[in-house]
């Protein structure tokens, strides 16, 4: 059937289109419904920013781990029990300091190290953030509530290949003497993306 032969009728609702795909896959034995149970659970209950937060807290209290993390993020994440998908072969961890602010994005789609920082928030996938953060980084960060001093260098990382990035936020001075668990509790998803400081 060519496009010109198709009877034009209203576009199905997005929910009806999703139902159609799921039913068609199930009808062929491709087990979509089972995959939704399994992967839906992972996306909502396992792949969460608390994973990245635990990695950051460990790096803050353990200088040797911090070195390993900065040298090979993927191996360090695995060391803490956080596996990454096969196609994420490389994790680069970007260290923020008082004079450096790293921020990550994906202008071509919306790639992230989702097993560590969670599936990306809506604004990360929107046209506005994707189009503007590479070109107007400081302005965009300010609009998002992060006003940086003029001597802070902004480093934007566009996830245009299959290398993944995660920001290692600067440890706040007020946290001297805190336990690793307490530290993990203050690390936010947005600080792992680099649009917030702690």
């Amino acid at each position, binding site marked *: *059937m060519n496009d010109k032969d*198709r009877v*034009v*009728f*209203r*576009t*199905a*609702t*997005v*929910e009806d*289109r*999703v*139902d*159609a*795909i*799921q*039913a*068609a896959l199930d009808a062929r034995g*491709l087990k979509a419904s089972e*995959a*939704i149970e399994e*992967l*839906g659970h992972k*996306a*909502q209950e396992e792949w969460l920013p608390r994973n990245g937060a635990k990695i950051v807290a460990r790096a803050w209290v353990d200088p040797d781990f911090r070195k390993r993390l900065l040298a090979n993020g993927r191996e360090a994440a695995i060391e803490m029990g956080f596996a990454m998908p096969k*196609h994420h072969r*490389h994790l680069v961890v970007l260290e923020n300091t008082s004079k450096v602010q790293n921020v990550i994005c994906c*202008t*071509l789609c919306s790639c992230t190290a989702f097993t560590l920082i*969670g*599936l990306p*928030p*809506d*604004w990360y996938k*929107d*046209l506005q953030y*994707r*189009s*503007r953060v*590479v*070109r*107007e*980084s*400081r302005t*965009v960060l300010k*609009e*998002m*509530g992060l006003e940086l001093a003029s001597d802070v*260098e902004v*480093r*934007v*990382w*566009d*996830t*245009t*290949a*299959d*290398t993944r990035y995660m920001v290692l936020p600067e440890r706040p001075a007020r946290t001297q003497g805190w336990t690793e668990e307490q530290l993990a509790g203050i690390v936010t998803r*947005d600080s792992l993306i680099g*649009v917030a400081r702690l």
Partner: protein
Amino acid sequence: MDGIHDLGGKQGYGPVRYTLDATAFHSPWEVRVNAMYAHVVRSGIFNMDEYRHAIERMDPRHYLTASYYERSLTSLATLLVEKGVIQREELERRANGAFPLSSASAPGRGNSLHRERFQPGDRVRVKLDFVPGHIRLPGYVRGKIGTVVGESPAYPFPDAHAHGVPAEDEPTYDVRFHAEDLWPNGCDPALVHVGVFQSYLERAD
């Protein structure tokens, strides 16, 4: 392809709609789409590069108005139809309405014949490649000069992998550009890093 998806540096999209408690999913159907596309990739029916390219092939007007997970759904359906797993008629009958799919693919290509190994500190230029198929290079660095700061393990070459063209895996280089070199007099000063496949790069000095 120089498609609608290549958003970096484009103007006119307005303020980021940022909220502190922003969620990844807004409806249960979004969770289902995300799980189904990942499952189909895992099953080997199509790969991530084909998936990304099928999003890029969406009608630009549809792309701009669709949410992220509607784009994902459109790519999933397009590839299932193109691979012959499901017929479009069946999808439209089951959905009780039209099911918009992406436009047909143009040919892909293999690795560049002239690939060089680079080291951190090397100055590199992004080649002026204009291709009709998939390319995983943001247009804003094309022809620009930057400095290598990192190298990744080898990955499938997207321009080939999205099209079923045989090719060698190749590394990507994290290349550091100055925003002022990308958009002279039209940007905030920053260092902009892009992951660039080896085939897209040549030595600058």
